[in-house]
């Protein structure tokens, strides 16, 4: 195991985060604050409590999830796309580094950044609304699992994309809509039976539901199902990454 390489990649990627601190951390924190101001404080006060939780508090887990999802994808995809674009990937390909070590380095750094971001958003949210966390260990587990899974997805995207447009289109056209419609702003029990069924095809629903359960003990779908869904997504992403390195897809001629 080339631990020095994992450390080097991890440090290098996090250094990129510090360099672009404002856009990578401050941006999402500010936009989340805006959501709280608009939906939580301004409009939320007119909404009834959902499942016994004030609307503002109800929003918190969903908003954290939404930022974590989109930021994981965009960070991890950028991290691996950049060296492909600039050509510096030659060094990684010629180094005594396995696929597994590469993924730990890149995905680990992107996921770390997402966890930090999620925590910051939670702290920011605390300034606007009062909420409690019923199962803190599960909360952290869901946060970490989601960060890792969507960073893996971003890593795959960064290898698949052969232009900046593609790199931005997938988060914009797929991840963001799924996140918006994944129950961040509502409980799916508020939907008509038909839309409830349709919504169940959206994997984000399971994440948000599970994450919200770790806060308030109430969920749209069983927690075990949420966990199973995260595990499944992670397994699929890992399989794709494994295939990429096995075949050299878009990495080696």
């Amino acid at each position, binding site marked *: 195991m080339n631990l*020095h*390489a994992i450390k*080097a990649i991890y440090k290098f990627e996090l250094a990129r985060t510090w360099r672009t601190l404002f856009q990578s951390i401050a941006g999402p924190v500010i936009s989340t604050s805006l959501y709280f101001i608009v939906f939580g404080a301004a409009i939320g006060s007119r909404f009834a409590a959902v499942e016994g939780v004030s609307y503002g508090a109800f929003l918190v887990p969903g908003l954290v999830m939404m930022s974590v999802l989109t930021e994981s994808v965009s960070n991890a995809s950028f991290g691996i796309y950049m060296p492909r674009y*600039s050509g510096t990937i030659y060094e990684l*390909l*010629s180094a005594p*580094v396995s696929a597994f070590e590469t993924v730990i380095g890149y995905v680990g750094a992107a996921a770390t950044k997402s966890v930090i971001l999620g925590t910051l958003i939670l702290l920011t949210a605390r300034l606007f609304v009062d909420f409690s966390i019923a199962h803190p260990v599960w909360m952290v587990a869901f946060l970490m699992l989601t960060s890792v899974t969507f960073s893996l997805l971003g890593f795959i995207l960064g290898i698949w994309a052969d232009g900046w447009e593609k790199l931005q289109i997938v988060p914009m056209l797929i991840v963001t809509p799924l996140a918006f419609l994944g129950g961040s702003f509502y409980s799916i029990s508020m939907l008509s039976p038909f839309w409830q069924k349709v919504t169940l095809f959206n994997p984000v629903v399971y994440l948000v539901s599970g994450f919200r359960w770790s806060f308030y003990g109430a969920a749209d779908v069983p927690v075990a199902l949420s966990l199973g869904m995260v595990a499944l997504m992670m397994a699929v992403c890992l399989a794709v990454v494994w295939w990429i390195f096995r075949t050299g897809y878009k990495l*080696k001629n």
Partner: protein
Amino acid sequence: MQPIIEIRGLEKTYASGFQALKGVDLDIRRGEILALLGPNGAGKTTLISIVCGIVRPTSGSVTVDGHDILRDWRAARSLIGLVPQELTTEAFESVWATVSFSRGLFGKPPDPAVIERILKDLSLWDKKDTKVMALSGGMKRRVLIAKALSHEPRILFLDEPTAGVDVELRRGMWEMIGRLRDSGVTIILTTHYIEEAEEMADSIGVISGGRIILVEEKAALMEKLGKRLLTLQLQNPLDAIPAELAGYPLTLSEGGRELVYQFDTQQERTGIAGLLRKLGDHGITYTNLRTNESSLEEIFVSLVRERA
């Protein structure tokens, strides 16, 4: 001693269907500087990229210090440093950070003293905190060399290290490469400057159209090149070399109108004066004379043309 790199029957066909390497066999000796000389598109970069693990071979085998590059890739790659042909650098990192990163990537623990020595050797020390994008082309090239050396490799590949580098810097780079060799590093460089190969290499390999045409020690090659030709244009054509001149390596050309004398510049006496005196003695007059040096360039061009 076992060659440090052994390449056997190496072939590469790209996805486009283009065959860039057509069965390359090559042994590279420990501690030597091998210059791979060849025109653009000859397959130099492809060959290097396969040895370094960037391009997959279609068939054939490569071992690096006995380690197969596919089965035992970790050991093989740990021994190699690569300076690519293109100036590809991380733009936003400092010189220090990018070179330290490379060392880690190749599995070595951080060692600021080693990085400091490398940067000083390459006259980059005063730029260590500068962002790479703020450097000139020549400096970026040296950053790439520093990255390749950061893990103290036993083998260094330099793919056209002096392309686009001005003459003065080129000299400095040659000196640096010489110092590296003195420290025991095996160096493989590609170039299409004959002068560069002549100046630095211990061995010279010529590659063209995906095939190695020739690999020879430079000294042996130089001996061949050391042969010079003296051509005399005769006033009266000759049918045959006169018997009195039989002791000289002479040939007739241009239907007897030219007399060609081959001599060795490495020797103390060329014998030219004696020959000319003898010609006078025998009444053979000439209207003009010229000497030819068959340069590496000429040999190279004729070799490449022959095989094309």
